Structures are given as structure tokens and as C-alpha cells.
């Protein structure tokens, strides 16, 4: 599904990623762990199409050159990024934002757009599945949301947009244990043999709830080791500093 070869990225002439390789197949859950400044967020930004980076290497998504696509085109193809810091958009209801979003994607795919009733039905069903409070939807997007509410909202958006590849950028940061559990259950309920996930985190804690198929350690812009869930445990014991 996603194939990254020798990915290098610079910003302001500083090299952040220094030849990264990663292959994700449909249905797989990959976790990337690494210390601050290792390039984790840069990776998620480059995959989702944030501007401002000088990028080299190849990234293909379902056989297509991802790097040539605009940010919104990547979203249309089924790439979703759950933001580490979801943005506030004052005056825009969460509902309105979600409806605009899903219909922009449907339109780009040549599918029929949802009318108000179909949309409300979908959103009701998804909130119920995820056990999220619907009240959040009638509030302005992320304005005055607690950290937990913002992250829940990201997961709700993910479930409604139904992406093929979901990238979770430090979704666990700033969550208390209860919120972490709820968010993780949400993610788990979306797993199936077609959807893939790339989970970016500092801590092993999140991986206790969302069991990954693969764990990669990112350090100094490269993946220095890959393994299974056991690797995360080992990392937690040793720490990033002494891990080689």
C-alpha cells in the first residue's frame, strides 16, 4: 500500500530525514517510536503533504507517486492524518466542517455527495460506535475543546472519512488514562484487513492498547531497528539514549 524508499527531507537547510525506508501492507498496523527531534512529525507531515520541505526519495501509495500530489488530493486518495495539535476554526461548526470534508472527498472521487439527512445518520451511527458524545459536533471546531475532546474529534473524523491509511501523530500526548483508553478502543474498532495505520508515539503506553504488527525505532532521521511489539517493551526499559 505504502512504500517509502530512501526518503530524505530538509527544512531550512537542516536535514531531518536521512534515508528512511518503510513498507506498509493493507491491514497492517505499524508503530514508529523515537525521541524528540528524531523526525517523527516530519515523516507524518511529508506523507500528508505539508508544504515547506525539500524532499528526496520515493514514496508510492497504491502504486502512485505520492510526492506529486497536493495535500487535498492525498486526502481524496484515502490518507488521513490525526493531528498532534488539531487546529481551531472559530465560527465553523464541527458538523459543518465534517460534512464539507466528506463531501469534498466524495466529489473528488466522483461519488454522490451526502445530503443533510444522510450525513446526520452517518454521524449518529459513528458517534454511537465510538461511544463519543454527539454534543461535541454542534460546537465550533476544536474551539474550547479539552485535549481529550480534540483527540476524540480526530478519531471521529477518521472513522467518518474512512481512510485507507491513517497516520496518528502522537495522538496519545496530553491524554489521561481514561481518554487514552477510549481513543484506543476507537482506533481498534476501525481495524480490519484492508485499512492500515501508522502510529507515531514517544511511549510504549499507547501500544499496550493498540497492539501493532510492527514497531520501528526512528533515530537521527533513520529507522535503526524494526521488530514486533516486544521491541517497544525493550525500548521502554533501555530508553532511547542507550538504544542502538
Amino acid at each position, binding site marked *: 500500500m505504502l512504500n517509502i524508499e530512501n526518503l530524505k527531507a530538509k527544512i531550512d537547510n*537542516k536535514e531531518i530525514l536521512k534515508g528512511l525506508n518503510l513498507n506498509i501492507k493493507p491491514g497492517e498496523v505499524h508503530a514508529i517510536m523515537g525521541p524528540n527531534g528524531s523526525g517523527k512529525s516530519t515523516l507524518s507531515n511529508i506523507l500528508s503533504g505539508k508544504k*515547506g520541505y525539500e524532499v528526496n526519495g520515493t514514496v508510492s501509495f497504491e502504486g502512485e507517486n505520492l510526492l506529486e500530489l497536493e495535500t487535498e488530493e492525498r486526502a481524496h486518495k484515502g490518507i*488521513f492524518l490525526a*493531528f498532534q495539535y*488539531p*487546529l481551531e476554526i472559530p465560527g465553523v461548526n464541527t458538523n459543518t466542517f465534517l460534512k*464539507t*470534508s466528506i463531501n*469534498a472527498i466524495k466529489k473528488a472521487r466522483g461519488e454522490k455527495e451526502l445530503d443533510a439527512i444522510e450525513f446526520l445518520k452517518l454521524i449518529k451511527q459513528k458517534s454511537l460506535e465510538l461511544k463519543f458524545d454527539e454534543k461535541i459536533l454542534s460546537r465550533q471546531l476544536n474551539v474550547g475543546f479539552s485535549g481529550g475532546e480534540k483527540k476524540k474529534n480526530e478519531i471521529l473524523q477518521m472513522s467518518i472519512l474512512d481512510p485507507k491509511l491513517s497516520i496518528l501523530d502522537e495522538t496519545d500526548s496530553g491524554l489521561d488514562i481514561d481518554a487514552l483508553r477510549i481513543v484506543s478502543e476507537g482506533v481498534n474498532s476501525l481495524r480490519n484487513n484492508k485499512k492500515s495505520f501508522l502510529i507515531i508515539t514517544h511511549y510504549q503506553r499507547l501500544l499496550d492498547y493498540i497492539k501493532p504488527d510492527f514497531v520501528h525505532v526512528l533515530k537521527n532521521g533513520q529507522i535503526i531497528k524494526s521488530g514486533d511489539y516486544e521491541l517497544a517493551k525493550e525500548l521502554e526499559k533501555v530508553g532511547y539514549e542507550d538504544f542502538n
Partner: protein
Amino acid sequence: MDPDNNQVSNPEIDNLIEKNYEFGFTTEIESETIPPGLNEDVIRLISKKKDEPQFLLDWRLKAFNHWLKLKEPKWGKLKIDEIDYQNISYFSAPKLENAPKSLDEVDPKLLETYDKLGIPLHERAKLAGVAVDAVFDSVSVATTFKKKLAEAGVIFSSFSEAVKEHPELIKKYLGKVVPYRDNYFAALNAAVFSDGSFVYIPKGVRCPMELSTYFRINEANTGQFERTLIVADEGSHVSYLEGCTAPMRDENQLHAANVELIALDDAEIKYSTVQNWYPGDKDGVGGIYNFVTKRGLCKGKNSKISWTQVETGSAITWKYPSCILKGDNSVGEFYSIAITNNHQKADTGTKMIHLGKNTKSKIISKGISAGNSDMMYRGLVDISSKADNSRNFTQCDSLLMGNKCGAHTIPYIKNKNLKSNIEHEATTSKISDEQLYYCNQRGLNQEEAVSLIVNGFCKEVLQQLPMEFAVEAQKLVGISLEGSVG
């Protein structure tokens, strides 16, 4: 290191700023336009063409002679190219062999123009339930729905017609809120105004439909000087909307309108404007000079006047729809969205003059500037010594797009009453690259993202518009700003 803080301008987006003005067509229609120039004879000619009573001609001449003594205001930060008042034609009318008696007799080309503008003049008017008075250049062309309104006792007609049919009402109220001595452009308008709309809502009547006027400047080298007068008698209620467009021309055209509103005891007037005059091209060539005096008088107790404006067009806008709160317990409101792009300049705001006791006013202003444009909110809240227990709340929010535009807020506040209070809040924000990235990641392209964010910013004001116009305004907001982020 952080890409989020990189505020470099985005060439891709800058390219998108060039957005064509949708209403820039002209209509080939034979018209009668008097030669450019301004003197007493021209005024007599206008008055004669309109078959006006003596009192009106006298009033025009007084206004003209007063105007001659005035100097053109050098206003604030606006750089205005010199206006040659002798080079403007003060009267232009589509040529009609005989004046039309009904819509069927109106020149089909005119109707076609209104069709292009999306104005519900014909059947569409019925669907929308809107009564429309359309002013083309200087003359009011057709007023729809007259019959239905007449049954309710509502008078809604062109100004010229009202002068003939209800001279006593015109004589009683004309110039009472905006006297010709008020300012330079008000005096000019009083001298040369050619048409406009007149509304009278009788005692206790709730106007059965939204009333609406569309203004269009078609002829080259003409100015448009219309006058609107709305009188809401005791306990009545009316909602009125005006819309404006003009063709694209290289020279600047002058629009100097006057609007007077009068609300008697317990009456309410809601006045909404969607102004989309031609703003000039991306280099700032051409466009309408929109110098307008709009004022409402809450004359009676418990009366209410509410202004809502969506200002997206014009090269230069200079207007301050105001309320004089004379009656005790009267209420004044001002809701405004002003958008400037490219080289547009807007100096707009409101004045709330509290004279009566327990009077209340509310000002919500949303200014959006993009490109190289400049936006100024200028407002006055004045609470007199007799206006006990009066209150004002003002909120001015500015949104900047790109690094080359400006936004300024100048609130003048005068409170001479210790029992009254004034609250003022102001914010300035910018559409961040991060917000756009977030929207893009959710599948919205740049234009959809900007439109969504700006409409969110304007929401409080858009909500004030009558339903069918709110949708139109929302689209207009999106169009005016397409791609204008840097």
C-alpha cells in the same frame, strides 16, 4: 526550524488572487443621457424630466447652492483620485417610448440584464416572495408585487412615483434624517438625485414580504445618486434589502447615495445591503467610488433600527450607516462584513447616537482584508447626558490574509452619562497556514478552505441576513476572496 512559522508568501496562491468580476457585462440598450456637467440648469432639467413639484426643485437648488460652498472631504487614509464633477452625467435613463405600465412593457433587454444578475424580478420573485424595485442607472424600472403590498396598505414604489402620488409624505420626511447640509456628498445627492425607493408602512402593519431594491450602473461616465426613504409608522415592521452591481470600466464611477430611515413608536426597520459594485481590476484600475450616507432615526419609543451590510465591491467605500436613538428604550444595531482585496479601500463603520433613556446599541463588525487592500473600521458611540441607563456593546474583528494588506480600528467613544456604559472588544487575526493545511488534509482545496474559514469568521453577521440572501452572501464572501491567501 518549525515550518509552521514560515510566513513566506505562497506564489501558487498569489496567482489565484486574480478573480474576474462576474457582473462586469454591459447592456446594449438605447438610453437617454444628459451631457456631463453640473449647474442650476442641469438640476432644473432633472427636475423637469421627472415632472417634480416646486417644493422639490426648491429643495434641490438650496442643496446645490450649499454644496458649492463645501469642500470635498479629505478623508482618513483614503487616496482618492480627483473627481471632476463637471465630467459626470447626472441623469441617464433607458429610453422608453412610453413609460412602462407593467412588467410586460419593460424592455426585454433590461429584464435580461436583471436575469443575468440573478434578480428575482419575474416569476422568480413570486417564488422568493420578494418584492423588487430595480434601479437601472438613474431610473427605477419596475416594481413588482405592488398589488399585494397595496392590499396591506404598504407603499413601495420608486422615489419619483412617490413624489407624484404621495407628495405630502415626501415633504414631511425628506431630508429630516440626512439634511442636505449634512456633508459634501449628501448635499450633492440632494441636488441631483434621480431616483430611488420609497417605503411607507402604515400603523400596526407587519410588511407581508421582504422588500428589495437592486441598483445597477450601466452607462459609462454616469454617476448614480439614488435616495431611499423608509418610514415605519407606529407599531409597524419591515425588512428591506438592497443589492448593487456595475459593469467593469477603466474609469472610476461615482455612487453617492442617501438612505434615510425613520421608525416611529414601537416600529422596527431591518435594512440589509449586499454591495458588490465593481471593485476595479487587480492593479487598482477602475471601480466604483461608493460614498454613501445612510442614517436611521429611532424617533419613537421602543423603536428599533438594524443595519446589516455585506460589502465586497467598490474601489473605495466610504459609509457609516448610523442610528440616532431618540425615542426612550429604542435599539440600534449594526452588523457588518466588509471585504477588501487587491487594491480596494474601505473606510466603514457606524455611529450610534444615544439621546433617549434606556437606549441600547450593538455593533458587530467583521473586516477581512486581502491582497494590497486596506480596511478601516471607524465608529462613534455617543451617549448624551440625558440618555440614562443606556448601553453599547461593540465588537470589531479583523482578519488578515497575506502580508501586504492592512486593517485598522478607530472607535470614537463619548459617554456623558454616568449611569450608562460602553463596552468595546477588538481582535485581529490571520488565517494561518496551519489552519489551511488542516482543511487541505481533510480534502478541501485552498479555495474551499478559505471560504469555510472566512464564513466561520463572519457567521454572527451572516445569521442576521434574511434566509435567501444569506446563502447568496455566503457565496459572495467565498468568491471575493478566492485564493487570496499568502
